[in-house]
Every structure is written in structure tokens, then in C-alpha cells.
């Protein structure tokens, strides 16, 4: 993993007897686009607030960009787009960015140039001098994204950045995240839209009832490939033989054999092995297991809709 820029050890937050975050231990590397997934009420937003120093942990510790959580230094190179972005809506979009830039200590022509560039990037140049209260939900979200980038951050926390955006707005956010990745900026993404996460993140962790319960790399080498075979015969000898190719033991259901593979290079090997053994192949389909399927599997049967 690249040099870690976010590290937490056994971070815990309880509000009285209610434990919102039981044990948050994770490490996010520089330049990584990191997905933080979990059902409603899992403690994701509380975890984000802990990382940003908006609330104090009950126990545990952590660092962001080498500074302890809550330290002013930790926030100097951090950008944050909260869920349901709200700001003083009597300001114009340009004034909003100016105020936030000044809170980062930015001034003068350099700040104004940056504001113009960001307004153009989030497609708000035309609405820059209108009060935010006249903006649509999507425009507000894009204005929020621009304020999260005003200090050219090294780490950006995005809490549901595409909520309220139409498809074009989502494409825009995805392209901004891609640009951040190219610049080496770390993106900490909290989203329920698993398709978005799958398309943008390098790695995700699954968070359930205040704890990390799983982790998944989303690169090409990740064990997310699944094949389905219709062969004859599909006896125990064939299944045992197929097991040697899979990441998990194959399962036979309704005349079909399903198995997970460590990588797609073994698909031709499987076909050759079956033909060599004289097994008739009627169908061989490979597909990647979707993040949604992983999510449901990791969260377990006991998880109810939030």
C-alpha cells in the first residue's frame, strides 16, 4: 500500500449508552480512492466526523496527513463535502467559495482565479453571482463540491457526493474524482450508490454496526470473477477437479456449477481440462461479481433495510 495518509486505531464513539462507532481501524494510502460502505445507521457519517475532528472520540486514536485527529494542522489540506450540503444560502456561489477560501488563509488574485476555475469545473459559472437559495439541489451539491476543493486538498472526504444529482451531475462528479486520482489526491468516499463506488474506487471497506467487517480491492486482480458451467457429467469427480482452479469450492445447483476464480486467466485452462477429461460443455459463462452482491454477502442475512 502507498504511504498512509489516514490511519485510525480502535477509534470508538459512544453517545451515552449508544455506541455509534465500536472499532474503526483502517488505513488509507496516498492517492487512493477509497470507498467506505455500510447500511444506514452503520456509523459511517459519525466515522467521517471523527476523522474531521467534528466530534471527539470516546477512545482510540488516529491521524490524517500525519496530524492527530482534531488538530488544526490535520484540516489544512483536507476538503469536505458533507451529506446534505448546507451553507449560508443568502450568499452567492462565488461568495461561498470566497469565504471558504479565506478560512483556508487564501487571499487576493490567486483565490479569485481558483474560484473562477472551480466554478467552471462544476459548471456553475453562469450561476456564480446568484444566491445559493435560488439553486437547484444538484447545483447546491456541485457548489459544495467546489468548496471542498478550494484549498487544493491532499485528502477529500465526500459524503454521498452524488445524492440529488441527475445522471449528468453524476458523470461530472466521477470525472472530478478521476482528476483527483490523477493528481495523487486521496479520496475518501462514502456512498450508497454502489455502482458509483465500483466505477471510481480502488478499494472499499464494509462497515457494519460500527465495525469494519470486510475489505475488497476493486482492481482487475481482485477475486470477483465468477463462472457458471453447464456440463455433463457434473459428478463429484468433476467438482473436485474444478476446485483446483477456483478461489472457493464450486457449488452445483439446478444442473449448473458455479465457482469463483482468482483471475480470468484460468478460464481457458478450465475449458481444456474439461475437454481433456471428456466432459461435455453446454455453457460456460463468466461474469464479475457486482459490488452490490459483495455488499449483501458481507452484510449478511440479518441486515434489514435502513
Amino acid at each position, binding site marked *: 500500500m502507498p504511504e498512509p495518509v489516514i490511519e485510525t486505531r480502535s477509534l470508538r464513539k459512544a453517545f451515552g449508552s449508544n455506541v455509534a462507532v465500536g472499532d474503526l481501524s483502517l488505513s488509507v494510502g496516498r492517492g487512493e480512492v477509497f470507498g467506505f460502505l455500510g447500511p444506514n445507521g452503520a456509523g459511517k457519517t459519525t466515522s467521517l466526523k471523527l476523522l474531521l475532528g*467534528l466530534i471527539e472520540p470516546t477512545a482510540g486514536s488516529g491521524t490524517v496527513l500525519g496530524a492527530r485527529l482534531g488538530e488544526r494542522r490535520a484540516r489544512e489540506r483536507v476538503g469536505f463535502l*458533507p451529506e*446534505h450540503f*448546507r451553507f*449560508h444560502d443568502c*450568499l452567492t456561489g462565488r461568495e461561498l467559495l470566497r*469565504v471558504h477560501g479565506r478560512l483556508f488563509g487564501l487571499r487576493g488574485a490567486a483565490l479569485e482565479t481558483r474560484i473562477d476555475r472551480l466554478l467552471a469545473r462544476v459548471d456553475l459559472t453562469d450561476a456564480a453571482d446568484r444566491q445559493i437559495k435560488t439553486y437547484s439541489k444538484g447545483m447546491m451539491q456541485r457548489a459544495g463540491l467546489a*468548496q471542498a476543493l478550494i484549498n487544493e486538498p491532499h485528502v477529500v472526504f465526500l459524503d454521498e457526493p452524488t445524492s440529488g444529482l441527475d445522471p449528468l451531475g453524476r458523470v461530472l462528479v466521477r470525472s472530478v474524482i478521476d482528476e483527483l486520482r490523477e493528481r495523487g489526491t486521496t479520496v475518501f468516499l462514502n456512498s450508497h450508490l454502489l455502482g458509483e463506488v465500483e466505477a471510481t474506487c480502488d478499494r472499499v471497506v464494509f462497515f457494519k454496526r460500527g465495525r469494519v467487517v470486510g475489505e475488497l480491492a476493486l482492481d482487475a486482480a481482485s477475486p470477483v470473477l465468477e463462472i457458471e458451467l453447464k456440463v455433463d457429467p457434473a459428478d463429484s469427480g468433476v467438482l473436485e477437479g474444478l476446485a483446483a482452479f477456483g478461489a472457493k469450492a464450486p457449488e452445483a445447483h439446478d444442473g449448473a456449477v458455479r465457482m469463483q476464480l482468482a483471475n480470468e486467466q484460468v478460464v481457458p485452462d478450465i475449458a481444456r481440462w474439461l475437454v481433456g477429461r471428456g466432459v461435455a460443455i453446454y455453457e460456460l459463462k463468466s461474469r464479475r461479481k457486482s459490488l452490490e452482491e459483495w455488499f449483501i454477502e458481507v452484510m449478511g442475512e440479518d441486515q434489514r433495510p435502513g
Partner: protein
Amino acid sequence: MRRILTIAQLTFLEARRRKIVPAVLGCGALFLLVYGVALHFVAAKLLEENAPFLQRTAVYQIITLAGLYVANFLTIAVAVLLPVDTLSGEISSGVMQTVASKPLHRAEIVLGKWLAFLAMSAAYFAFTAGGVLLILRVTADHVQPHMPVALSLMFLGAILMMSISLAGGARLSTVSNAIVAFAFYGIAFIGGWIEQIGTMTASHSARNIGTVISLVSPVDSLWRRAAVEMSPGLTGLQFSPFGASNVPSNAMIVWAVAFTAVALALAVQAFRRRPL
């Protein structure tokens, strides 16, 4: 300091855009209009009757006290209401998350807002109290003596109440904070009367209870001391809102300054620890 000033500028801008400034100035202007009209007729009557100088001066002093009493009340109300939801409202709406995630100390947020409201309250006090004095000068050719000390004491009362309102907003919801802040003013008002009645009736217990209440909320003591400073030669007003049979001491003024500082420190401390 730059970040404090940025927060102060933001607070000003918000007050202007939300039309708080014209609303407050409109109410103040209405009061000054009513006051001016009333004074015009009083002055005309005194002139018509060719009242002696001492009588006219006494009448104008009482009218000055009455006008400044209202100006004092309005300024305190404005000083309480301006910041009443500035912290609690921004916390509950989520606005504060975006601001507090920036590299500034939470104390800078509180101090920036405090400075902005201090300036706004000062401007309003200058408008209302200054308006009263100007109307007296123009309409009745009356100049009230000893004003700098009296006005300073009155404004100290407004700063004190403003600091209490800001501190309450760091811990309480907007409605609870407004109730608590006005309760502080109400307690001070009652405490002041108990203290004066206790002094007049030589009831040490009542006087001591009044003094203790004034220590809990010294804003009424500041007004009474200001009233005495303004009209040292005026008698017969002890049992009224415009005087004091038991004049609040210098120690009470020092206590009020300390109280304001403690309220501001509590605002910073409460907001520093507040989960956002």
C-alpha cells in the same frame, strides 16, 4: 486574527442579506419618531407656559431617562436576539460542519461572531440612544450631562446579555436559548426592584436577596447606576425605573465586566466541546 475577521464579515453579510438590519433599524426609527413627536408637544407646552428653567430641566431630564430606558431595552433585545440562533441554528442545520472542518479553532468562530454582534449592537445603540439625545438637543435644546459614563454602563449591559445569548446558543436549542436569555433579563429586573424596595423599607433580607439576584444577573444594576450617573441632582425617582435608592457600587460594575468575560469564555468552551 484573519479568520476571526472572515467569520465576522460573514456574520455581517448574513445579517444584511437576511434583512435583519433594515428590520431592526425600522423599529428603532419608529421609536424615535414617537419619542420626537411626544417631546415636541411637551416642549411646546413648557414654552407656552413660560416654565422656569429648573422645572424645564427637571422635565427634560425625566424625558431623557425615559427615552434612554427604552433605547436601553431595545438594544438589549437586539443584542439578545441577533446571536440567539447563530450557533444553535447553524449546528442543527449542518452549516457549522462545513465551517468547523476548516483549519480554524472553534474559539475563532465564536470570537468572530461575538465581534460582529458587538459591532451591530454598538451601531444600534448609537442609533437609538444617539437619536434620543439628538432629538432632545434639536427639539428642546436640552443637553444631558454625564453621558459618556452612563452610555458606557448601558452598553456594557447589552454586551453582557449578548454574551449570555451566544453562550446559550453553544449548548441549547434556539428556543431554549431565547427563553433562558430573556429569563436572565427578567430576573435582573425583578432583582433590581426587590433590592430597591428592600432599601426603602429598611428590610435587610429583601435588600440582600435583591443584591444576590443582581449578582446572578447584573444587567438591571448597570441601568440603575447609569440612570443615577445621568441625573445626580434629580430627586424623587428612587422608586421608579429611572433611579435607585440603593445605588449599585463600583464593585458591581467590575462584577458585570467579569461576568461578560466569563460568559464569553463559557461560549468558547461549550462550543469547543460541542459535537457537530
